[in-house]
């Protein structure tokens, strides 16, 4: 790898940065590093970082990227990390005009990382964080052994997404949990109101006979038990299940440490998952906007060709680059033409709507605002409108799993929008929360699926595998309460040893 400080690309780095800033982009200082195809594949394997904790899943990712190269698919042209300063990688051997496109694209990304509020709590010293994690895990491997650590990381990766994406916005949140010295299984019970029964007697010397210490103790124990049964633990349903496990689960210290590392990294990556469409759309918008002016002559044609490859939108799948970019352009157009506000919302005349143009010129301002405040779900919910769906002839289809037959299900704009929003809200996974750390008073961990958000059934085999991981981390039985397909029953409760369906009492 080489820094391109002294190479011929440096003037472009500076010129494009200047142009971007002049037009309103605001980004962390960004360092570009030129890498070979092999190095790019390795970086892709590591999620953009030069080093990660040791695990074969990174090796598998690396192999898949390399295979992608061979079959001509998905040549990764760029990668950029959310950090301050930011680091971006350029592939050796690419044409200058391609590198320029990537630079413009990268500045869009870094601006997004810096300004979008969903990123504001992420650790900007990310490279250090990953390197430190790698070192800590390797130290543990030296002490405990490769195989054991690998097995444990496998378990941690099964549960890595059991976190609360909204937690970082609460004041008491900590991405990095300090491991408690003696983690309590159950909360302490205060005994201030404890009034034991005492048998009455006349003489003080009779106290020990009538009310021996053992009798008082027995009552105290019963009292504590009774209180315990009533106490809500946790006091409210907890979506950050990993935090709960780290604080209250029965694990060895090194296991707790590794789970904690994986949780911290998960919180770092969460906003990227929540804003993929917007971030890519924003970056494309900027490379297109800047390269329009920057690329000249033949270069322009080559750029245009590459650009169209990036935003190629195959008919039956979703290309986030394309969707995000088109949606940003749609917003820009609407706000330039004044197509917003009460009057606009009230107008139902299609022709009037089509010809609407108040010359408001607020497009650029609006998209800057959107890039600051929205995440994908909000972005889609608010801006995928009738005009957008119809302009792009968007629709929902069903495909029969065995025969492959594809049938159009709906092209009503609200249905399409709602389906899009739902897909990106759920991302195929249920929302789970810890309801109790002492279910059935046996120290069982009870986790419940949020059926209001989505009452879809959960894939049982996968859930069972994950339950095994959770049981290993909690130290006692773990019960998952989910939606059930059985008709007269409301829920299924599954654990590694039991499967029960029942109706919930109102």
């Amino acid at each position, binding site marked *: *790898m080489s820094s391109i*400080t*002294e190479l011929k690309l440096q003037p472009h780095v500076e010129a494009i940065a200047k142009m971007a800033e002049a037009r309103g982009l605001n980004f962390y200082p960004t360092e570009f590093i030129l890498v*070979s195809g*092999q*190095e790019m594949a*390795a970086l892709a*394997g590591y999620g953009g970082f*030069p080093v990660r904790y040791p*695990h*074969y*899943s*990174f*090796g*598998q990712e*690396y*192999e*898949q990227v390399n295979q992608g190269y061979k079959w001509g698919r998905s040549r990764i042209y760029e990668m950029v990390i959310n950090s301050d300063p930011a680091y971006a990688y350029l592939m050796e051997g690419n044409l200058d005009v391609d590198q320029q496109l990537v630079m413009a694209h990268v500045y869009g990304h870094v601006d997004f990382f810096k300004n979008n509020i969903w990123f504001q709590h992420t650790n900007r010293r990310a490279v250090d964080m990953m390197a430190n994690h790698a070192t800590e895990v390797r130290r543990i491997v030296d002490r405990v052994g490769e195989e054991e650590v*690998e097995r444990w990381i*496998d378990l941690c*990766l*099964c549960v890595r*997404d*059991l976190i609360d994406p909204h937690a970082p916005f609460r004041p008491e949140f900590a991405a990095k949990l300090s491991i408690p010295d003696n983690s309590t299984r159950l909360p302490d019970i205060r005994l201030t109101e404890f009034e034991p029964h005492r048998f009455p007697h006349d003489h003080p010397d009779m106290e020990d006979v009538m009310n021996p210490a053992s009798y008082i103790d027995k009552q105290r124990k019963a009292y504590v038990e009774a209180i315990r049964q009533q106490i809500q633990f946790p006091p409210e349903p907890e979506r950050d299940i990993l935090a709960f496990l780290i604080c209250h689960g029965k694990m060895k210290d090194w296991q707790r440490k590794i789970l904690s590392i994986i949780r911290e990294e998960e919180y770092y990556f969460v906003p990227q998952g929540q804003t993929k469409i917007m971030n890519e759309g924003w970056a494309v918008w900027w490379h297109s906007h800047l390269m329009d002016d920057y690329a000249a002559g033949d270069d322009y044609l080559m750029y245009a060709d590459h650009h169209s490859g990036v935003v190629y*939108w*195959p*008919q*039956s*799948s*979703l290309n986030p680059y394309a969707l995000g970019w088109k949606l940003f352009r749609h917003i820009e157009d609407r706000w330039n033409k004044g197509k917003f506000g009460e009057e606009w919302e009230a107008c139902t005349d299609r022709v009037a709507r089509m010809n609407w143009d108040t010359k408001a010129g607020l497009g650029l301002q609006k998209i800057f605002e959107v890039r600051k405040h929205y995440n994908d779900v909000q972005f889609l919910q608010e801006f995928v409108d009738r005009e957008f769906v119809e302009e792009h*002839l*968007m*629709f*929902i*289809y*069903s*495909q*029969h*799993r*065995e*025969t*492959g*037959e*594809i049938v*159009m*299900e709906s*092209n009503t704009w609200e249905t*399409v929008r709602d389906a899009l929003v739902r897909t990106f809200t759920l991302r*195929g*996974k*249920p929302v789970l929360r810890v309801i109790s750390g002492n279910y059935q008073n046996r120290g069982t961990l009870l986790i419940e699926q949020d059926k209001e958000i989505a009452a879809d*059934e*959960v*894939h*049982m*085999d*996968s*859930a069972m595998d*994950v339950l095994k991981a959770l049981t290993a981390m909690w130290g006692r039985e773990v019960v998952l309460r989910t939606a059930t*397909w059985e008709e007269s029953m409301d829920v299924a409760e599954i654990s590694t040893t039991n499967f029960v369906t029942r109706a919930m009492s109102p």
Partner: protein
Amino acid sequence: MTDVTPTRPDVDGIIRGDHKRYRDIGKKKARKDLEKYMTDDSFVGRQGDKKVKVPIPVINLPRVRFGPNDKDGDGSGGKGYGLGHGVSGKPGDVLRPGSYPGSGQGGRGAGQDHAEHGVQQFELTRDELAQLLGEQLQLPNMTRKHSGEMEVVGHKYSGRTNVGPDVMLIQKDTLLEALVRTIAEDEYDEDDPVIVPIKDDFRYRTIKPITRPTSKAVTFFLRDVSGSMGIQQRAPLSFAAAYWLNLWIEYCYGGRYEPVYVLHDHSAWEATKDEFMTAGVAGGTSMKSAIELVKEIIKTKYPPNEWNIYIFHFGDGDSWDIKGYLQTLIQIMPDIAMFGYVQVAPVYKGDFYDVVTAWSKSAAAKKLSAAIHNENMVRTTTLETYEDMPKAIKALLS
């Protein structure tokens, strides 16, 4: 002038550990599935000459997710949904017709759901596959005799000579020569110990190759293509068996290896690999003609003192002259390493298998065999379907 750039971590070096670990896991899976590949009738046909591709599932660790559960237990999964664009139409329009089982086409299309069960084409080298074969079937390495040729496996700088390039100069030896000469000429002054080497004193290193004796092998694959042996199952079955045998023997001999294909009906002829895979003609069967041809080829092209010779004959048990065959076989036995007969026939067609098997177990045969290599030079096995492949290969090679 170059800028001082901070040293970058060697990322592709670091990831190699994780990559190797992943490949080890993949190979372990491939090894467990090896018998599945051996009993898969399309596996051999899919492979190229150099690399081997085996499908292994992408290792996706489970997560709690939505998913249709296979309630009916029949593998049907109902429907998946997806987002499309660019097509105008109305609900109910069939955008792409389905293909139904039996029509020869798969139904999997785009829009496959959250791929928990993606399958990846895992690449192995032929050597890696051969290793897995050996491990899984517990095959012993082949005993071999050396061909009399030497091969170069490396070099060492252990030679000494009087002339050479400066870079090969050995200062110590040179000065030593000069010292000896100076003393011999009585010119050596202890108080003023100066030595001046002359041309004859100079000593240089030279390269010497490190060699070792090589061994090489030839395997003869004989196949009956007469009318008694149908094309349908038996040709590809024989070819697939030959693939696995080739793989292992070639691996044992480090690539110094040649396969020879012989086909026969009532007479025999040498054929190409492709012909071995497909050919079938009408006619009667003389298995002896094949073994006679092999004997000729050995005489002309593969002197037994240089070559380790393996012979595998695929037949359906039907032959005119079993005794003649055995006589020829006995004649060439001293020259070969191993003989295997594979009965490729679901239908019992003749006595060849029984006769040869019985003979191979006889005391006379064992004595003859033991005198040459070991008791088990002659092996027989049956191969009725692909299901039999693992046991057949093991029987032939163990």
